[in-house]
């Protein structure tokens, strides 16, 4: 379906160019096209066709050459960093970025795991689909505690746009009226299992200020006709989503925004097109297009448009902007403030707790649920009461072990085999998802000495967890253990991993929004203060990181920014 729309060279002047085809770029393309603009979507990677290119989908372990494991030599050669992602395996590996071709460097003594997806669809194919609104508090905390700059928007500015994107993407969840986690427009939630239902009862009774609720996710739990008409169907609970889903049961560029954009006949797509820089015209102070290097042939070409939306992911966009140097902007386009590349944040996923729980022996479930319960944020509300600032929420449900109860023991033989045929005890998990406070020192810049095979200067990272982050990790494990104990779980173990930032895969903040052009790159419309027809709507725009998964917020910000941009454009103000 996409093939007729693929282009290589073009002398056309488009209304808008969108760089990057992941969650943000897919939304930008859809919205711009539906508003009648002629749009070119520029993507560095190969085309991935819905269904036909999901080459790992539906394969049983015995149908894969190495049982699902990736070949050692291939990992060593191409996936040294990507391998660290929990979703990386033989059926998904082709949707992960290639560390050999697209390397980056880190400041000595620091480390950053940059997990990428560089193809049509970006990481919309790989994400875990957890979709939570940010709360009013999240847009106010920078102002309250003086870290980072004040957000130029508030929750109320975004609320209608959350509703707008949720109705289209399809978010399953339960109405909870929780102040730290506003409700979305929901499809029915996934069910809790017997142990989770029990845990909910105990937790909410013992801790009246806590809620234990089902995780909200971009899955069609019970699709309405609206979704069926898009060619999307009900989630089959395979939980093999990152291989691609022919049911279109989870939100991705391929299943959702791209078909909508194509339907307008306003979209063209340039794949294998690495954007090197934004073309800037100093006379008009406008972006006029992008310089592109062909991913396969290394030939250069230009595309032109009246406005440019950068949606190449937080770090991809930042690399392009830093590399867009001119006399007016010697340190990167729209970077008069000097904050481009700074205030890099991820989430804190390092603290986890596990336990067993007795009983429930007759209870089981059918299907592999693609989400699990969460406990919304409950600390430091309104004012700081803990040793650390900001907050976290806890993720984690219960499941019944298979085979684990026989691993690492000395058992073998027929009795052992018969024992393994039965499930093991139920296990409970709780893990923190915490906010990293924005810090100027946590940054990414261009490596002045090294370039990749396309001649792009490599990104150079200098990012580390701060004291606040470590205090939060400590509190996460202590609190998780306490809650598990309250539920009556046993064999509680906690762990704080020394993983560097990056592995939460929620990097953001490097071209932040703000009220003051002197300390921010973007205004409250995701529009560059310095260059009015240049927009950034991916995670680079975030002035703080909250503790919630961010992609739903990127969707809402993107749809809102397009609405504003198109109004300005139609009024001749861009």
């Amino acid at each position, binding site marked *: 379906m996409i093939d007729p729309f693929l282009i290589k060279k073009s002398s056309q002047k488009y209304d808008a160019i969108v760089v990057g085809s992941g969650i943000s770029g897919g939304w930008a393309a859809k919205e711009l096209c539906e508003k009648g603009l002629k749009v070119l979507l520029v993507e560095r990677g190969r085309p991935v066709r819905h*269904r*036909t290119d999901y080459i790992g*989908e*539906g*394969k*049983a*372990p*015995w*149908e894969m*050459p*190495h*049982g*699902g*494991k*990736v*070949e*050692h*030599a291939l990992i060593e050669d191409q996936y040294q960093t990507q391998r660290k992602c929990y979703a990386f*395996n*033989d059926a998904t590996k082709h949707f992960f970025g290639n560390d050999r071709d697209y390397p980056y460097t880190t400041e000595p003594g620091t480390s950053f795991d940059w997990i990428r997806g560089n193809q049509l669809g970006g990481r919309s194919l790989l994400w875990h689909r957890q979709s939570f609104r940010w709360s009013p508090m999240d847009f106010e905390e920078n102002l309250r505690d003086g870290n980072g700059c004040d957000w130029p928007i508030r929750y109320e500015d975004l609320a209608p746009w959350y509703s707008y994107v949720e109705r289209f993407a399809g978010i399953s969840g339960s109405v909870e009226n929780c102040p730290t986690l506003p409700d979305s427009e929901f499809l029915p939630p*996934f*069910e*809790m*299992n*017997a142990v989770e*239902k029990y845990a909910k009862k105990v937790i909410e009774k013992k801790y009246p200020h806590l809620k234990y609720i089902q995780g909200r996710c971009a899955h069609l739990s019970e699709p309405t006709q609206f979704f069926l008409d898009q060619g999307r*169907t*009900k*989630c*089959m*609970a*395979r939980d*093999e989503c990152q291989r691609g889903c*022919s*049911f279109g049961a989870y939100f991705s560029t391929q299943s959702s925004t791209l078909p909508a954009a194509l339907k307008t006949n306003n979209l063209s797509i340039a794949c294998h097109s690495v954007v090197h820089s934004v073309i800037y015209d100093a006379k008009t102070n406008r972006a006029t297009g992008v310089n592109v290097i062909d991913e396969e042939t290394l030939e250069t070409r230009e595309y032109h448009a009246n406005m440019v939306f950068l949606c190449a992911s937080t770090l991809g966009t930042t690399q392009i902007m830093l590399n867009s140097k001119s006399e007016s902007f010697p340190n990167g386009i729209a970077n008069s403030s000097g904050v481009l590349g700074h205030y890099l944040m991820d989430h804190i996923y390092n603290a986890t707790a596990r336990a067993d729980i007795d009983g429930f022996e*007759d*209870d*089981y*479930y*059918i*299907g*592999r649920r693609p989400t699990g319960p969460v406990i919304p944020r409950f600390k430091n509300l309104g004012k700081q009461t803990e040793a650390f600032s900001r907050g976290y929420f806890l993720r984690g449900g219960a499941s*019944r072990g*298979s*085979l684990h109860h*026989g*691993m*690492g023991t*000395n058992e*073998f*033989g*027929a009795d*052992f*085999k*018969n024992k*393994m*045929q*039965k*499930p*093991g005890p139920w296990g409970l998990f709780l893990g923190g998802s915490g906010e990293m406070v924005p810090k100027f020192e946590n940054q990414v810049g261009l490596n002045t000495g090294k370039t990749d095979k396309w001649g792009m200067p490599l990104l150079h990272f200098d990012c580390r967890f701060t004291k606040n982050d470590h205090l939060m990790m400590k509190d996460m494990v202590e609190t998780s253990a306490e809650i598990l104990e309250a539920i009556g779980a046993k064999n509680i173990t906690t762990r704080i991993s020394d993983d560097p930032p990056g592995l939460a895969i929620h990097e953001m903040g490097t071209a932040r929004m703000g009220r003051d052009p002197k300390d921010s790159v973007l205004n409250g419309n995701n529009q560059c203060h310095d260059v009015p027809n240049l927009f950034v709507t991916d995670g680079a725009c975030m002035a703080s990181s909250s503790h919630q998964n961010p992609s739903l917020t990127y969707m809402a910000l993107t749809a809102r920014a397009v609405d504003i941009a198109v109004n300005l454009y139609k009024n001749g103000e861009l």
Partner: protein
Amino acid sequence: MTSQHPFHKPASLTRREILAGLAASCAGLLSQNTLAGMPESAPALQQGASKGEMLTPAGMKLLAALVDVIIPPTKTKGAAAVNTHGFIDHQLAHCQSSAEAAQFVAALTDAGELIERKWHKKYWALSPAEQVTVMAALAERRAPFNRQGYPLFAKLKTMTMIGYYSSEEGASKELVYLAVPGGYSADFSLADNGGKAYAIPFF
């Protein structure tokens, strides 16, 4: 999907509904195996007579005998019959560093020699009872294996479990493997699943 995992509950989808839904939404897109249930394509039973990718014919024979004592045939096939030794040999060749693989091969070879020295026979030629005795000594790292620095039993058992339970027989006959569950329901008891555990992805 076989009769081993019945959908008793009217609340959850029936198998027929699932297949109908599948056929309607993406017939021909998923592999035929997924739609038709699991294929009957168990690898040819090779009791390790031929050379492996890493191991010699004798090494393969030893490995086949060992994995079959860890997971023997019961109502379902045992580890050797589904070529778990071939799986392990293949993993050593492709999915481990050459140093890791060499360590395993060396420890396996060494164990084979220790067995022959103490029991005067190849492992596969011992009686079933003797094979169990030897395996217990290996598991507990008792003589003659007490000098082996490498945790051979632990590695061997882990790889055997992975190989067996990700084979078609191990995953879908011994355990329950649902390619397309059709949805999630907690209104489903262990008895509804025939008392069996689900197969899990190892990677």
